[in-house]
């Protein structure tokens, strides 16, 4: 059972355009929603994260929009640049009992920004 569904699998955007990646989750116990960015040959790195008590969080050109009722959240990259070309993973975290807190990742979106 896939708990975090991410789309699209791949995305091609022109420089200066807006990149939008969507994720949906099923378990309402999730209470933390980070996005990770991964460049080829590197490990993932936290890009931006949101908690369900806010509907939007912006950091520079990156914005997370969160819709609690729809159980969906999305990453918007404004003014996309070739350097943003990477794989993006959404994730959802929850306490799974005691001190066990786990992240469940989406399958990833390969973003290509053409110059």
């Amino acid at each position: 059972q896939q708990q975090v569904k991410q789309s699209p699998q791949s995305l091609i955007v022109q420089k200066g355009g807006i990149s939008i990646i969507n994720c949906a989750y099923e378990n309402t116990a999730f209470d933390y929603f980070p996005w990770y960015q991964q460049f080829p040959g590197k490990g993932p790195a936290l890009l931006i994260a949101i908690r369900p008590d806010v509907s939007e969080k912006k950091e520079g050109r990156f914005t997370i929009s969160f819709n609690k009722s729809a159980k969906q959240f999305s990453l918007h990259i404004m003014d996309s640049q070739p350097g943003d070309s990477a794989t993006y993973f959404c994730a959802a975290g929850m306490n799974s009992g005691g001190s066990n807190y786990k992240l469940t990742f989406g399958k990833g979106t390969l973003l290509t920004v053409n110059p």
Partner: protein
Amino acid sequence: TAGITQAPTSQILAAGRSMTLRCTQDMRHNAMYWYRQDLGLGLRLIHYSNTAGTTGKGEVPDGYSVSRANTDDFPLTLASAVPSQTSVYFCASSDSFHPTTDTQYFGPGTRLTVL
């Protein structure tokens, strides 16, 4: 500060052989994790450790074992490798086991091929 180091960078292993993937962090983080990354499947948690001396099973623990003798090291062992364990393995750490306050930092990964 090195952050998280993983060794080896890559390895080709004959099926049936054993191998230990090494992970060391110098951030004195309490929690550590092992993920495998497969194309189209995203990141899946193998094992985790809340603190030195404790370990737990993640989403895909079969065929893998871990130990956490001290804060810094979290080795992952494949007792008898099989081709389905061909993957890229990432070690990660966080300052506490509740990632709403602490980021998971990832190592550079180990690419393992089992033939």
